[in-house]
C-alpha cells in the first residue's frame, strides 16, 4: 500500500493552475505554428501570429494567456492500493485552486448560478475521482474558459442516424459556434454511453497530446475526416474566415443502449490549458 498526503495534491493543483494560466504548452505552440504556415488568409495569419506572440508575452511577463482563467476541472486517477491521509481530498483540491487564483492574480469567475454572487476564490473546482488498479496516482488539471464551454452541445441521436448523423452534428456545432469559442479549436467528442457519460468523455478527450490519434482504427479515421471537414467549414481563426478552424479532433467512445446514440461535442478554444502529471 502506498500513502499519499493530500497536501501533496493541494500543492500540485496549485502549481498546475499557475503554470497553465501563464504558459502555452509546447504541443499547442507547435500546432499553432503549423496552422500559421498553412493558413491562406491575411487576417487568419495575423490572428495566428498574434496568438503565438501572446504566448511569449504571457510567459515572459507572467500575465495570463487569457483573461478568462477558467473554471477548474480536476481529475484524479487513484490506484486502489493508495491510501490518502491528511485533510479531505476535495478540500485539498479546492485549497490549491484558492491559493493559485489569489496568489497568481488570476480572475475569479465562479458565481452562484442564480444570484450571480461571486465565490471570490474561483472554487469550487469540478473534481472527478476514478479508481484504477495498482498504486499509481495521476492528476489532470484543465482550466476551461466559458467562451468555448458555452458553445458545446450534447445530442441524443437515434441509432439510425449512424456515423453520418454524428458528422453532421459535429459540423453543425462548429458552424453555429462561429467565432464565439475562439477558433482554431481543439474538439473533444464523446460517442455513446449516456447523456452525461458522453459529455464527460468529450471533456476528458481534451487531455490527449495534440497530434496523437485514437488507437481505434475506425475512430482514428473519423478523427482525420472530422478535422478535414471542420476546416472545410472555413469558419477560420476567430471566425474571420480561413483554412484553420480546427487544430485537433479527439474522439472517445463507450458502449451505449441499443435504443440510443448519445453524442457530445466539447469545443476548446485555441488556448487549451491542460496538463497531466503522475503523483
Amino acid at each position: 500500500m502506498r500513502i499519499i498526503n493530500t497536501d501533496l495534491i493541494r500543492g500540485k493543483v496549485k502549481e498546475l493552475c499557475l503554470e497553465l494560466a501563464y504558459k502555452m504548452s509546447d504541443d499547442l505552440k507547435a500546432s499553432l505554428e503549423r496552422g500559421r504556415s498553412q493558413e491562406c488568409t491575411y487576417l487568419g495569419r495575423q490572428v495566428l501570429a498574434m496568438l503565438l506572440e501572446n504566448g511569449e508575452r504571457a510567459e515572459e511577463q507572467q500575465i495570463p494567456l487569457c483573461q478568462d482563467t477558467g473554471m477548474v476541472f480536476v481529475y484524479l486517477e487513484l490506484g486502489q492500493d493508495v491510501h490518502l491521509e491528511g485533510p479531505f481530498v476535495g478540500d485539498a483540491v479546492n485549497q490549491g485552486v484558492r491559493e493559485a487564483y489569489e496568489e497568481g492574480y488570476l480572475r475569479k469567475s465562479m458565481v452562484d448560478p442564480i444570484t450571480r454572487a461571486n465565490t471570490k476564490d474561483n472554487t469550487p473546482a469540478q473534481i472527478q475521482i476514478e479508481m484504477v488498479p495498482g498504486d499509481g496516482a495521476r492528476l489532470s488539471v484543465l482550466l476551461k474558459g466559458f467562451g468555448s464551454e458555452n458553445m458545446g452541445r450534447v445530442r441524443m441521436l437515434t441509432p439510425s442516424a449512424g456515423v453520418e448523423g454524428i458528422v453532421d452534428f459535429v459540423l453543425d456545432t462548429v458552424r453555429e459556434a462561429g467565432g464565439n469559442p475562439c477558433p482554431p479549436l481543439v474538439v473533444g467528442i464523446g460517442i455513446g454511453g449516456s447523456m452525461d457519460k458522453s459529455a464527460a468523455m468529450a471533456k476528458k478527450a481534451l487531455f490527449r497530446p495534440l497530434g496523437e490519434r485514437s488507437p481505434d482504427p475506425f475512430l482514428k479515421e473519423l478523427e482525420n475526416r472530422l478535422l478535414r471537414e471542420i476546416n472545410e467549414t472555413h469558419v477560420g481563426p476567430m471566425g474571420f474566415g480561413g483554412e484553420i478552424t480546427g487544430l485537433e479532433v479527439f474522439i472517445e467512445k463507450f458502449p451505449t443502449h441499443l435504443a440510443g446514440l448519445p453524442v457530445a461535442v466539447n469545443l476548446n478554444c485555441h488556448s487549451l490549458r491542460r496538463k497531466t502529471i503522475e503523483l
Partner: protein
Amino acid sequence: MNYNPIKETKQDDKEEVIRLNLPLTDRQRSSLQAGQMVYLTGTLYTARDQAHLRMLQEIREGKELPIPLSEAGIYYCGPTPARPGNLVGSIGPTTSSRMDKMTVPLLEKGLKLMIGKGKRSPEVVKAIAEQKALYLSAIGGAGALYAGCITAMEPVAYEDLMAEAVYRIEVKDFPAVVSVDSSGNTIF
C-alpha cells in the same frame, strides 16, 4: 510596454496598417469596411453582462449613465487583476452575442463603437447600420498581448462587480478587425 503591430507575416501581405484615434469621427466610421484591421489609440470603457444590465436599468429609471455613450467605445471584457506594479492584467475580449439583447437601447442612446468577439444578432447589425455605428472584433485569447496596449486604467462605476465593473482605459495601437461596418456589412 506597448504592442507593436505586426506589419506582415508573408510576402504577399501588403495590407496597409490603419491607425486611428478615438473617438472616431462620423466620416472615419463610414469609411471603414468589414474585414479591415485597425489599430486604435484613445479612450475605451469596459462593460460586460452585469454592467449592461445595470446601465439598462438606469436608462429605464431615467438616470444618467456612468459613461458618455456618444463618445465612448465599449470594450466587452473582464480583465484579470493586475499584479502589484502592473497597470492591468490579461485583458482580451469576451463573447459579444451575450450583450446582443442589451445593445440596441445603448445604440439608440448614442453609442457608436463596440469591441468584442464573435458575431452579432440581426437586430444589432440592423441597429448598427441605422445609427451608423461600428462593431469591431478583438482577438480572443490574446489577453497578455492586449495588456501591452493599455496605457491607463481606472474604475468608473459598479466596482462591486469586480472584473465586471466599468473601467475607463486608455489604449495605444489596440488591434481589432472591423466586423460589422456602418453600412451593416459583416465579416462573418
